């Protein structure tokens, strides 16, 4: 049992786990992730594609083995941190003792010069019997422990933030309201693709209201600028362009407008009506009168064209219609309108404070690494016959500087 515990907290185990994470990450980056099964078969062939799916390499970061690996890494970091924290008590004094006991590098009669140099470098002196110990950055001994603790905190808080939140994607037409299961309402007041200067700037004007009727101020949600309200964060995720169709019923005098984001059959009796196939941003008319439709949807819809099928008395007639044109079938008149751009919103529900904890772990890790690398604890014991350096980290720079100092004096 003792041996197992020692292995679980050992650096060897940690290195093995890190190597395994590299292996998984390599596979996860080289094999496209979370695609339909058929894509793997067509890309890699039936045998390899099938193997990829069976081994879970199509979603490698969600496989139980990978999650187990991360859990093992967290365990290794925890045990390693426990061992380190035990060793930290009295580490400064132990380092001083190590310096006192170390074999000195000969520098007879240089104590005063060394004293001046070390004090200039911010070392604190502690005089003893026949030896003065200069120390610096003893707090740096905590660097490695804090780094491991920071990494552990990032792993745990990161997992909570990643798997603890709920994410849903929704498209909402401007002027419409989306109601979430807990009664919170998101009202889309406006949406634009370009700002006043014509620069791309996907922005939705939103207002939110919670179940108790508490309203947020109106906010402009952009890429990189989500809106926060209660436990929700709303992101500008994507956008689309929908066709609009006004339907007028001559018999009842009623009128309605529908948004067309995908093919749809607009009918009153289930048999006769207009089938919406597609909306095109524009067209090019040749000299002979033939029309070529523009299919690229990346730009503005300058001359929108509706691709429709009119279905009446069992006959289907393809029709290209422009905004404002009227198509009448019986009592119903179909009037295509100007296309409308709409936002695709991402709504994330996350416990308050979760991200704060995650970001605090980030700060801890960066601070710990700074301490670890740039506040290296070091002690120099100076005796009348020479000096000795003790540090848990490489100190070649200081060593060479002291050697140069002594050499300089000898050459005088």
């Amino acid at each position: 049992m003792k041996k197992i515990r020692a292995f679980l907290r050992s650096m060897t185990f940690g290195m093995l786990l890190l190597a395994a994470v590299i292996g998984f990450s390599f596979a996860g980056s080289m094999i496209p992730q979370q695609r339909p099964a058929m894509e793997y078969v067509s890309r890699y062939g039936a045998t390899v594609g099938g193997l990829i799916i069976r081994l879970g390499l199509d979603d490698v970061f969600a496989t139980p083995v990978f999650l187990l690996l991360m859990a093992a890494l967290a365990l290794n970091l925890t045990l390693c941190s426990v061992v380190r924290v035990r060793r930290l008590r009295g580490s400064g004094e132990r380092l001083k003792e190590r310096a006192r006991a170390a074999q000195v590098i000969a520098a007879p009669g240089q104590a005063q010069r060394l004293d001046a140099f070390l004090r200039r470098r911010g070392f604190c002196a502690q005089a003893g019997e026949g030896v003065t110990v200069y120390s610096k950055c003893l707090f740096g001994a905590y660097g490695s422990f804090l780094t491991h603790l920071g990494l552990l905190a990032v792993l745990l808080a990161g997992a909570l933030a990643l798997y603890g939140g709920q994410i849903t994607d929704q498209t909402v037409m401007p002027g419409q309201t989306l109601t979430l299961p807990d009664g919170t309402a998101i009202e889309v007041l406006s949406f634009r693709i370009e700002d006043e200067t014509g620069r791309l700037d996907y922005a939705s004007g939103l207002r939110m209201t919670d179940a108790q009727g508490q309203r947020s101020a109106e906010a402009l949600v952009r890429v990189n600028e989500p809106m926060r309200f209660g436990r929700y964060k709303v992101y500008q995720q994507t956008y689309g362009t929908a066709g609009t169709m006004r339907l007028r019923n001559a018999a009842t005098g009623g009128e309605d407008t529908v948004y067309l984001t995908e093919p749809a059959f607009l009918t009153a009796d289930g048999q006769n009506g207009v089938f919406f196939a597609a909306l095109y941003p524009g067209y090019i008319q040749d000299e002979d009168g033939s029309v070529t439709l523009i299919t690229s949807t990346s730009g503005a819809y300058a001359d929108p064209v509706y691709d429709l099928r009119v279905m009446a008395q069992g006959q289907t007639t393809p029709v290209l219609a422009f905004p404002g044109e009227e198509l009448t079938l019986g009592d119903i008149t179909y009037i295509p309108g100007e296309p409308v751009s709409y936002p695709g919103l991402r709504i994330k529900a996350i416990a308050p404070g979760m991200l704060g904890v995650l970001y605090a772990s980030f700060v801890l890790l960066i601070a710990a690494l700074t301490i670890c690398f740039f506040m290296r604890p070091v002690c120099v014991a100076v005796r009348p016959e020479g000096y000795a350096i003790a540090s848990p980290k490489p100190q070649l720079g200081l060593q060479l500087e002291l050697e140069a100092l002594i050499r300089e004096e000898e050459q005088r």
Partner: protein
Amino acid sequence: MRDMVFFAALLLYFAAMIVQIVSAALGRQKGCRAACALLSAGLALHTVYSVWRGIAAGRLPLANQFEFASGFAWAIAVLGLILHARLRQTWVLTASIPAAFLVMSYAAFQPMEIRDIMPALRSTWFALHIGSAIFSYAALAIAGGLGAYYLVRLSRGEREDSTAMRQADYMGYRMICLGFLLLTVVILSGAIWAEQAWSKWWSWDPKETWALITWIIYAIYLHQRLRMNWQGRRMALLSLAALVCVLFTFAGVNLLLPGLHSYA
């Protein structure tokens, strides 16, 4: 005219590299001083170019592969000169000038036109994330350069315990410490930015994944160095292998693995 300044800087880096390599091979101190002067002149022109481009673009000139590569080369030159000024050792230049020139040459093959920045890149995190990335990569590239220098000297019969070799080995380690810290800043600032832009702080995007792979490899390097007391040849080899990873994260991922960072 602006692009001429870029190519003039590239030419000066090239001249500095030739002069430095020849001088180092022949052991001429004067030549190394000339290489340092050429590198400084190249860096001055490079800085003028970057500021000029930044003013013309109305943003930090680090938004696409060309600009990032140019910034990466600039950071190598800056770090190389700072290190040289502190240590007064010519091998620092031998390691850093070729690295700056090679990265700058890569930049020269990228499309150079100034384009409007896409909405996803308009963020307050942009400067910290990309700024720390160029200095991180630069520090790691210099460490790799020092590793290569170490191996070349070793193959030519230089003793591992000579002061210059020990110093080159140690500086490689210190550069990796700096690069590793900055790489951590890159990854974590990128995570905060990703949460703001895409709602998830981590999405296993190829760029993120390769940044993590690179980070782990350097973490292994540091553990082997600090806990197992590995030094010299093994560390030089590992720093070179890790540099391959850095370069793949920088350029290979963009070319071969499409993802959320495809615009970079």
